[in-house]
């Protein structure tokens, strides 16, 4: 019995450690600033984490696909889709469901371009998606003519900031979102093939997988999910600005690393990325509440991240 428990702990060590760190950070916050770890504040923090968590889901797909997989354009896609959504909802007055579909299709197309460039033109993911940031920001300017208009409708605002029986709607949505992402990754043939291609491209090909299509789909998913994140963000911020999602680019990568998703591809769980996003958000809120001032905050943030990343990054040595 004891050994079964130990075994479970060994296999899920990452999850357990991540939950532990969340607990420790909340406890420290509670000691330094009473109220930090109250139910209400924890719900607030989780709500904030949801936006990062959604964008980090896109990042997870890209990193899982292997071959130095990475999608730096998640933030840019989110920004652009927020601008388009605001315009469609405001001036054009389209219904939210339709806007949701249009926005996700738009994100998927942008991701598709990334995927095509990476597979067929063989541009390294880092270069391709970095380049796409410029392209997408340019598109934003062109689309809005220099002056983004519109704002979130009341319904969208309710979804992003409102509550149902005391629980923020956005958390309910995030929970559903987590289930869908886990389902796609764990229970569909696509998810299984994505892990296979990321783990060993050659082996997946020899087994009959259509390696290129799967990679392209991974980046399309990344775009689609990021666009969804952008829409939620619009509801949260309410007004539109240029590049409102760009501050999520780096954190989305860090959340994925904290989640133990391997940069060699084909290994890692979205559930742990969720925990990574939560850790990151708790840390940021903690440093904000402490009023340390910008420079100090960045320093402390940097050091703690470095410590966490080393702790997590020292994953077991792979093949010997």
């Amino acid at each position, binding site marked *: 019995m004891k050994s079964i428990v130990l075994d479970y702990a060994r296999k899920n060590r990452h999850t357990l450690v991540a939950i532990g760190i969340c607990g420790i950070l909340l406890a420290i916050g509670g000691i330094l600033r009473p109220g930090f770890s109250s139910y209400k504040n924890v719900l607030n923090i989780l709500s904030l984490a949801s936006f990062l968590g959604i964008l980090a889901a896109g990042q997870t797909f890209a990193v899982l696909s292997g071959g130095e997989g990475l999608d730096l354009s998640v933030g840019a896609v989110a920004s652009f889709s927020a601008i388009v959504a605001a315009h469609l909802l405001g001036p054009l007055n389209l219904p939210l469901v339709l806007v949701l579909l249009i926005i996700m299709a738009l994100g998927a197309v942008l991701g598709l371009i990334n995927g095509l460039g990476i597979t067929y033109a063989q541009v390294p993911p880092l270069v391709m998606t970095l380049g796409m940031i410029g392209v997408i920001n340019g598109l934003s300017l062109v689309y809005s003519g220099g002056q983004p208009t519109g704002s979130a409708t009341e319904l969208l605002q309710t979804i992003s900031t409102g509550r149902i029986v005391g629980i923020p709607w956005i958390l309910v949505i995030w929970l559903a979102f987590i289930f869908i992402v886990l389902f796609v990754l764990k229970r*569909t043939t696509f998810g299984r093939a994505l892990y*296979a291609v990321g783990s060993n491209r050659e082996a997946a090909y020899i087994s009959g997988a259509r390696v290129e299509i799967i990679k392209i789909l991974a980046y399309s998913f990344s775009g689609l999910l990021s666009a969804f994140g952008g829409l939620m963000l619009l509801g949260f911020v309410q007004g539109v600005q240029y590049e409102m999602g760009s501050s999520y680019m780096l954190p989305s990568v860090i959340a994925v690393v904290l989640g133990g998703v391997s940069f060699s591809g084909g290994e890692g769980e979205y559930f742990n990325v969720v925990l990574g996003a939560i850790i990151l958000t708790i840390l940021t809120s903690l440093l904000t509440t402490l009023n340390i001032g910008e420079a100090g905050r960045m320093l402390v943030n940097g050091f703690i991240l470095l410590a966490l990343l080393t702790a997590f990054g020292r994953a077991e040595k792979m093949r010997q």
Partner: protein
Amino acid sequence: MSNYLQVEGLSKRFGQVKALDNAELECSSGEIHALLGANGSGKSTLIKSLAGIVVPDQGDIYLRGEKVSIGSPQESLAAGIATVHQDFSLVPQLTVKENLFLGAEPLRKLGFIDFGEIKKKADRLFNSFQVEIPLGAKIADLSVSQRQLVEIVKAFSRDPDLLLLDEPTASLPSERVKILFDTIRELANREMAVVFVSHRYGEVQDLCEKATILRNGYSVGEVQVAETSKDKVVSMMLGEEATKKNYGDSEKQSSKAKSEAKSSLSFRAENVTAAAGNVEKVSFSISPGEVLGVGGLQGQGQETLLRALYGLEPTIEGTCTLGKETLHIRSPREAIRNGIVYISGDRDEGLLHSRTIRENISIANNANRPLWELIDVDQERQLAKKVIEKLDAVYESLEDPAWQLSGGNRQKLLIGRWLIKDPKLILMNDPTKGVDVQTKEKIYDLLYSLANDGVLILLFSSETKELISLADNLLVMYEGKVVEKLEGENITEEMVLSASLNTGNNKND
């Protein structure tokens, strides 16, 4: 004490698995000592402990009677130990030369590395193996047998006092094995101690005087090879009961006697020519119930032929028909759709190292289904369990990543995954590489029963003995062409050799 190496009570656990459990090993200078055991019995773990890659939980290692602790590969090298690893220790992105120098510590002497000396030795060794591997080539671009040679040369060029060889012959063709053995003997004559791991008993008889046998991580005993027999050794490897149950049975069934094949599909290939140029106008046919072998000297296009038939190598000419159907295969996916599968001994090419055992088997199904279909994990688990137990694989849990398995057990995943597909034609490229004696017998039985059921089999093996004993008929290839087809029960190694040499000589005249 005359023993150069003495290992006492060595133990190592990985989670619940006791990879080593009080293992003992002794080897003196000038001795070539065999280390034998079934797949997963701890041979590689013992070797890795001496190479500084695995740190044992318990036990002592003595070199020249002095207790040593080996905490890292550098310390192992510094102690005069060089190792040929089963999974190779080469960095794929680096060149042959860079790999040869990698980790070269200033052994003995002065405090600097004599790169010139290493290169000279490497050149000499490559020469003696009669191979031309450009020193500037990237490891990733080499074939498995070339990589195996680089790994060997890398270890030999360090001029160690103790040489550890973990299945150095698994990926070598028979001709090279002879040269390797001559080299090893020469080194042993110069007082080098050698530990040699192999699943080919013939090699052990050829090379070694004494052997230590491991079972489940402990040393069952040390034997004089000349005074024992293969059956005795195998029963030591398995333990008494297991022997009666498995090995005895399969021995009886391993005859080529065939009943009438159940299916009547046959396969024809005509004028198959690979774009790479090393397969030219190859034609043959396989009839139901037949195991057709492709043999000859190493690298005469045999592997390229199999890969071309599977859609892994582009072809510029050739038609293949299966039954009445003409095939146009440009990718593995199309091959699989047509009932053709490919089992390779190149584990880097076939395994999803970081994924679970279960996923490594079910990928044979999953990679070919529509992407939106759902996965039934329970069914996956049952299928995986069924095929992998058929092959006697040693594993702890189906949810463990494949890299945790021992080399031979990993190979069983590559075979097992295609057994869930009901193929019509199986292309086998060294399928039993690294698999232990008794499981090999099982695989041979399986192969015959598949052939009996009408599954067509095209087999290449780097071990000519295995090829001859398994194949009903044998295509001998030379420079990409089929130069002779040997038929019937009584094909011998000499016949294969002379078929290839005759052509070679005629050409030179």
